[in-house]
Every structure is written in structure tokens, then in C-alpha cells.
């Protein structure tokens, strides 16, 4: 025997389902922020470490001296400067208390204003111990450094601020 009594049950089920899903959507969309797991914490730790390292490299070790970062950017045209940056930066970010060390990778570049190219922003690689392939999850840290050098593609040698940009990641 077929009648129309069951129609009410269907309506109730659909209504309850819609109310529950909509309520849950409202609660979650207003009270939470989606993040990819806890990745932001390790990102924060890496960013802090990279920022600290660049800040310390940009601090002169004695009064009147250039900071190591300033010296390395001014002399980056030679391989020795790139090796020195590599050694200093990796020492800062990999050293831990005790005998164990970390194993971080980085790729550094320098951005600057090219005064002979309508103040366009140019950049060139500074140093790296591994190239980014696209599968890594790097963080980006930067440090402004005051230098006096003639940058590639620029005919003028003047004091100016250059931005040292480092991508830093852990395998």
C-alpha cells in the first residue's frame, strides 16, 4: 500500500542535514584559520633563525669596521666572497649548543636599484649551497645592507641600500 505519509520523514532528514552542515560551516569559517598542519611553527623557527643570522652578519665585529655582510656584498664578484658568505651563514644557522649541528640549505641573492636603468630593480645570485627545485618548502628572510659598490649593469658607484634575500629550507 502506498501513501504519502513518508514524505514528511524525507523533508525532516533533508532539513536537519542542511541545518547541521550549515551550522558547522558557520562555526568553522568564523572560529578557525586553516593552516597546513603545524608547518607555520617550523616556518616561524626558520624565519627567526634566518633573520637572526642575517642581522648578526650585518653587525660589525668592531667599531668602525664594515659588517661581514657589507663586505661580502661589496666583494661578491669573486668566488672567495661567495665561499665566505656560505661558511659564515651556514655556521650561524646550523650551529647548535653541543656537538650536533643542523642541516639547512639556502639560496641567497641581492636586489638593488639600478640607477642607470631608470631605477629599476635588478638582482643577482649571491651564494647558495643548493638550488631550489620546486619541491622544497623554503621560508624567505631579508636584510637591508648599506654598501658602496658598482653593481652589475649599473655605471654608477654610490652608497645605497641593497636587499639581501635568502631562501632557507630544511630537507
Amino acid at each position: 500500500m502506498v501513501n504519502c505519509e513518508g514524505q514528511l520523514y524525507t523533508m525532516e532528514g533533508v532539513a536537519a542535514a542542511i541545518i547541521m552542515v550549515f551550522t558547522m560551516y558557520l562555526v568553522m569559517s568564523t572560529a578557525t584559520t586553516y593552516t597546513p598542519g603545524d608547518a607555520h611553527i617550523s616556518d616561524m623557527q626558520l624565519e627567526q633563525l634566518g633573520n637572526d643570522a642575517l642581522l648578526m652578519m650585518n653587525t660589525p665585529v668592531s667599531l668602525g669596521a664594515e659588517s661581514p655582510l657589507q663586505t661580502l656584498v661589496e666583494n661578491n664578484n669573486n668566488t672567495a666572497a661567495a665561499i665566505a658568505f656560505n661558511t659564515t651563514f651556514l655556521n650561524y644557522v646550523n650551529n647548535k649548543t653541543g656537538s650536533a649541528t643542523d642541516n639547512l640549505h639556502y639560496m641567497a641573492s641581492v636586489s638593488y636599484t639600478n640607477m642607470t636603468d631608470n631605477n629599476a630593480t635588478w638582482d643577482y645570485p649571491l651564494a647558495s649551497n643548493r638550488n631550489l627545485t620546486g619541491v622544497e618548502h623554503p621560508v624567505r628572510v631579508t636584510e637591508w645592507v648599506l654598501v658602496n659598490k658598482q653593481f652589475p649593469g649599473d655605471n654608477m658607484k654610490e652608497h645605497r641600500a641593497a636587499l639581501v634575500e635568502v631562501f632557507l629550507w630544511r630537507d
Partner: protein
Amino acid sequence: MIDDTANLSIDFLAGFTIFIVAFIYVATLIPGLLLGVQSGTIDYNAVAYRTGVILVEDPGSPVSWENPSIYNNYYLQTNPYSTRFGLALSKDSPNILSVQKVNRFFCSTFVYPADYRSRAVFGDYPYLFNISLQFTGANTTESIGDILPEGGYGYIRRVVQLKGWSNATIGKSTITALQQYSTANHTSTHIFWIHLNSTELLDGTNPACTNLQYQINPWQDQIMINLSDLNTTYNPNFPLTQANLSAISIYRAQQSQPFPNPLPAPIDSFPPDNLTTHAIPIYLYIDGNSTPVSTLPQNVTNSLSLTFSPGFFYLMGSNTNSQYDTTTQIYVSLTFNLTQPNWYLNNTYSPDGYFDYNYTPMYVTQCGLTPGVMEISVW
């Protein structure tokens, strides 16, 4: 009799199924919703980060908490809510740590975890933690806290630099260049003066005066003077027989008052005071000996190293807070007695006057920075 009373209709089954499917879907979302507020690791990481900021970027409170002349251990231990263990040199120089603050932070006087929890880690929850610090070239790691658990702890690593102390190494070349020896009087008693000019060190034109990481602060810093070639006389006709360091005296003068002649009474003298048991001790090492002597006089063959502990001169300033005293001048005299009269280390009548402990790198090794790393783990 058979009828259809107990049968479930297709419509009811459809509605009930939709409801159950939706209910299961919502139920599976709930753990994800609570994940953020239930994760202990997230909280521990936040506390570790906060502790790192306090230790590395904050100079602490009260100002000069590291100076035992001002705040003794009893004060720091009985005022938990007015003390913060920041290790930075100043708020304007983050990541540059004060060696005096580091030494006091890791001293054995403070008790783990109680003294540190309310002064560095904070929070209502009784966190356990481990804080370690190591500098390049150091053989040991400074550490306080528990052994790390297997996992489940918050962590932060900070790169820092430690401001070192200045020191003056005065040998024959410096003595000759600055004419710090006497040829005017062929006597047995010679006095060598060292001048700590707070005006020049703290309020002068040198950029170091305003850069705390390079500043020499006589009121707060450790002051070290190394004298070498003490077996040398400056009269080639009279070789040295025996030199004896008989006294060390501290004098004070105001900037507006040139150093008075005759001398006033010293504000501190050794003897009669004892060097190593002084409230803020002096460490005097003779001829490379690794054990400091505690009393004077002492025979000297070739060299001596004189170290005034940090804060030694603090209470000798004229201001209430002499950390910023730029008017008071400190003079340190070292009196040598020779067994036979001779020309010797003596700048009393030198045309260059006293040996100035200042920002000239040729004569005074300036404060340097040593890189290091700090790790903080909280659980």
C-alpha cells in the same frame, strides 16, 4: 492477520539515511575544529619563542639587574614579580648579549625552576624547560634546566653575539712610545697611573660612546690591565735587580677639578684591603701564574695581569646611578718598589701624563663580539 503496520516506508529510509550521512560528516569535522586549541606543542612553541625574545632582545628589569653592587642575590630572589632576566645589552641592540648578564643568569645561585620560571619563562602553567648557550671558541655550554624529553616540547633557536671586555696590554713598545717611564728621577719607588676618563668613554666624540656594543663603560665593565716587560729598565747602565708591586690605590676626581696635587686620600687601597675578598674582587695574576694573589706586596719578575671585576667602580661614582656618570674620573695607581734605584715604569712626570684607558685600538684592545647560539626548549 498480516498487514503493513511495521513496515518502513522508502521515504523514511531515504530521509534517515540523509540525516545519518550528514551527522557522520559533521561529527568527523569536530576533532579538526578542536585541533588548534588542544595541541600542546603549539603552546610550548609559543612559550619557547616568548622566552627567547625575553632573553635575547630584552635588557631585563630592573635596569642593571646584573650588577651585584646594586642588586644582590637576595633582592633578585625575593622580588620575583619585579625582575625579568633579559640578557640583551639594551633594547636597541637585540641579539647582542651582555657577558655580565649571561654570567649572572647561569650562575649557581639561582634555583631551577622556581627562580627562572617567574623571571624568564612566565605563564600560569608550571612549564619545565632547558636553556643552553654556547659561544664560538668556548669549550663548554652554559645550561640550566632539565634533560630534554623524547619529544613533545616547544623549541626555538636564536643566533646571538656576546659583547666581550676591553683590555690594555702595556709592554715595552707602548711604554717607550708613550714615554711612560721616568728618566727624571733615579729612585726606588715608581708609580704607574691609569686613567679611566668617563667623560671621554661615555660622552665623547667617539662613535663607541653611543654604540653600546662597542662602548667601554668603566662603571659597569670589567677592566683589565696587562703589564709586561716588567724586567726592563730604561737606564741601560743599571739592570733591574728585583721589582716589587707594593700597592694599588684608587683615586677619584671631578671633571671640573683637575687631578689635585698633592694627592687626596685614595677611596680604596690594597693593602690594607684584600684583593680577592673585596666586595667586588680584583684578580691579580703575577708572572703568568694561574692563581690570583690576594694580598700585596708581591715580587714581580716579568708581567702581571690586573682585572677589576665588572661593577668594581660602580659605587665610586658621584651619581646615584653611576652607570651614566660622565663627570667622575677614576685613577688607578700601581706602586713599584725596586731594590736599587733605577729608571722604570713611571708616568708621574711623563709628558703624555697618565696612561689613558680609551678607544685607541693601538693601546687598548677594544670590546669585540663573539658569535654564539642559544637554544630554548619548553615542555
